[in-house]
């Protein structure tokens, strides 16, 4: 018997969609086996996830709350991944955005909202993009792998956050918790009715996802990004400058992750603290992949993953660790990436 791998000539949209659904299905099956190991009925667990995430108005609003940072990060990541720049550093870029906007909020608590909010937003984008620029520059100057350098930058960001909230920025009236004082009202983002949905960030996420999709498919810059990602040698031959493309995509994806961090501190936590992100920057990688790097698809897919995070809280009550959600995310990524391989290749078995 001989097993050989052949390149598939064309992949139809239907196969792509089917393989996405199949990867989620397979992840559900494998996770079910593990759930059973915890003596939890997997069907019951999935029912509770669905119910808590999408079954009630409150649940759904929480799903949207979790989807916001995922959407904002993943839209940028989809762009960077198009250029084959594997930015794994959205988590760190998000933290830098949170830190820099918190600095504004804490330093000028008495300024009016119309000054505070835009400057928090601007600074979060700036610092997120600086955090993205470092791996980008290292890549174009020294050829280092973005995946590795951007990942390492995450740890640096986490340590800076830890230092600030345990040290100089620790709020005096916070009972010793590692967090800053609460932001003044003017530094808080408005929320929708009784929910925690900070709608300015949500709107920003949706608009930017659509905008980036148009940029990638219709603009000159998008053409350059796609050509560079698909065949860097041909892009260079066509006169495109890798330097420019790498820097811009890393700036944009870093900046967007920074804005997600701003949304978290100004819209949800209302202060800077440890654990402002339960790994949004990492989950966003999966969102971007499952969206096939199409930032328009990022919008629904981030809702799906937001629901999963909400549902994760619910299954904890059944005796499963919260890590079960991470496990599930990991399984989906694994199946999506291997499904991607099957989309592009055929496996033939000869006797």
């Amino acid at each position: 018997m001989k097993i050989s791998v052949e390149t598939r000539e064309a992949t139809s949209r239907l196969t792509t969609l089917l393989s996405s659904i199949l990867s989620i299905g397979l992840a559900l099956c494998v996770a079910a086996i593990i759930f059973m190991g915890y003596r939890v009925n997997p069907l019951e667990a999935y029912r509770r996830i669905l119910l808590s995430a999408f079954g009630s108005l409150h649940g759904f609003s929480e799903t949207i709350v979790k989807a916001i940072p995922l959407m904002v990060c993943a839209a940028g990541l989809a762009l960077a991944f198009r250029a084959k720049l594997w930015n794994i550093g959205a988590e760190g870029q998000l933290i830098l955005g949170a830190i820099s906007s918190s600095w504004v909020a804490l330093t000028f608590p008495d300024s009016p909202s119309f000054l505070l909010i835009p400057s928090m937003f601007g600074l979060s984008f700036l610092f997120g993009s600086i955090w993205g620029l470092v791996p980008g520059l290292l890549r174009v100057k020294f050829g280092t792998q973005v995946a590795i350098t951007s990942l390492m930058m995450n740890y640096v960001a986490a340590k800076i956050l830890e230092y600030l909230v345990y040290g100089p920025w620790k709020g005096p009236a916070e009972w010793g918790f590692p967090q800053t004082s609460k932001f003044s009202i003017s530094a808080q983002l408005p929320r929708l009715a009784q929910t925690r949905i900070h709608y300015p960030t949500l709107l920003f996420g949706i608009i930017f996802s659509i905008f980036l999709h148009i940029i990638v498919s219709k603009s000159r810059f998008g053409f350059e990004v796609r050509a560079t990602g698909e065949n860097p040698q041909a892009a260079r031959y066509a006169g495109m400058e890798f330097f420019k493309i790498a820097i811009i995509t890393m700036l944009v994806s870093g900046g967007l992750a920074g804005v997600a961090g701003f949304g978290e501190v100004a819209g949800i936590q209302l202060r800077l603290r440890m654990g402002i992100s339960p790994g949004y920057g990492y989950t966003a990688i999966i969102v971007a992949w499952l969206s096939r790097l199409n930032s328009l698809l990022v919008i629904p897919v981030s809702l799906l993953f937001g629901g999963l995070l909400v549902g994760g809280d619910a299954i904890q009550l059944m005796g499963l660790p919260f890590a079960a959600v991470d496990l599930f995310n990991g399984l989906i990524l694994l199946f999506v990436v291997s499904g991607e391989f099957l989309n592009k290749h055929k496996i033939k078995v000869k006797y």
Partner: protein
Amino acid sequence: MNAVEMKGITKRFPNVLANDHVDFRVASGEIHALLGENGAGKTTLMNILFGLYKPDEGYILLRGRKVTLRSPKDAIKLGIGMVHQHFKLVETNTVAENIALCLQIDDLKRPLKFLRLLQNPLNDVENHIQDLSNKYDLNVDPKAKIWQLSLGEQQRVEIIKTLFQGANVLILDEPTSVLTPGEVEELFNTLRTITDEGHAVVFISHKLEEVLKISDRVTVLRNGRVMASLSTSETDKEELARLMVGREVLFRLEKKQRTRSEPVLEVKNLEALSDKGRLALKNLTFKVYSGEILGIAGVSGNGQKELAEVITGLRNTEKGKINILGVDVTESSPMTILNQGTAHIPEERIKMGIVPNMSVSENLVLRRYNQHPFSKGFWLDADIINQYSEQLINEYNIVTPSTKTPVKLLSGGNIQKLILARETSWNPKLIIASHPTYGLDVGATEQIRQLLLEQREKGAAILLISEDLNEILSLSDRIIVMFNGEFFGEMLAETANIEKIGLMMAGVKT
């Protein structure tokens, strides 16, 4: 006695009928050419004979006996050997080690008697190689490392490998594509010696001249079907071309007298390094004039790639100056040089010339996407790009299902036509053309050469880099031979001497 007889072979691939009831017969002691354009089904047929594919219909007789070939292992056991277009040798090992690699364990153990345990079993392999090398006059040193050998020598190692395994039917897939004219001559002598011993040789090719020169019989394939099986002495170039392409083919290219005028490209004392940091271009000085084709003959790997890349801004210069239309473009960006009116038909057409996953229309504007009217400010104009693509597809006869098709689905000839269309449709001042027809079939080759001549008439200066001497001779006005990063013997095409060029290509200074 037929060494091999293939009967009614049919092989289907998704969407393609690669072989359609093919009958193919090779007699012992004959050199049988399998002629056809790219995609005609030659390699598929031979892969079936070598056990790589199983036919959907039909059967194979070997010396009159019906055989089933499940894998190349079966084929080798039955005495069929194949030399692939791309050699399968381990560069850092010696000839003997490479051949030992292909032997079955039993073959190696057999001479290993108890008392000879201390002796290196490779000695036997080496001795046997030496015997074969002497017998067939192959001149192969069993102790030489593969990386030290020229491509011609490596090919002889592959031939010895098949003979070592006891082959008496030898299949050679496009064997001359990597050889210099001199090496081709040597290969032909070797093949004669092999057939004189009673072996049969199948020679896959799409080059008419060599088929006429070396083969005893020729079978022509087109679209997976046998068009004819003829005795070579009873046919001629025109008939074979017609059978192969399906229409009359012009061999004489109409070349008008050139009117030499202004120099377009001026290169002075140019030096550049290869990827490995070796000096690849050594003090080159030359000019290319408007309305002329300067042919650079030479075997690949003698600095041609570096030369094309330095001129187009893809590689740094170490020393020297490059002027295009009087403007110094030394060390300029690829974009600047492009905007100076330079078209570039790159050597590696898939790796560099196109973005395989992007559409035909996107690839047609790959190097002009940022110019008016394709680009309006920040945005691309998809409608205009599409119209423009339709126009080029018609003008240049590019066969594609639509403008939206990913270009990787096109055939090699159509990909090259697309590149030519993109590079010449805007009447460039300078064209750097590297191996423009390499690996293409007769029809596409003819069209592409015609296109280059048209550009020459429109006044473009063309630097033509090619290994194909026929191409160089029929297109160029002036010819220079490149060897080891240096230029030899500039000559006018009318007075060029093919033997002399061949010798210079092999590094013999005359």
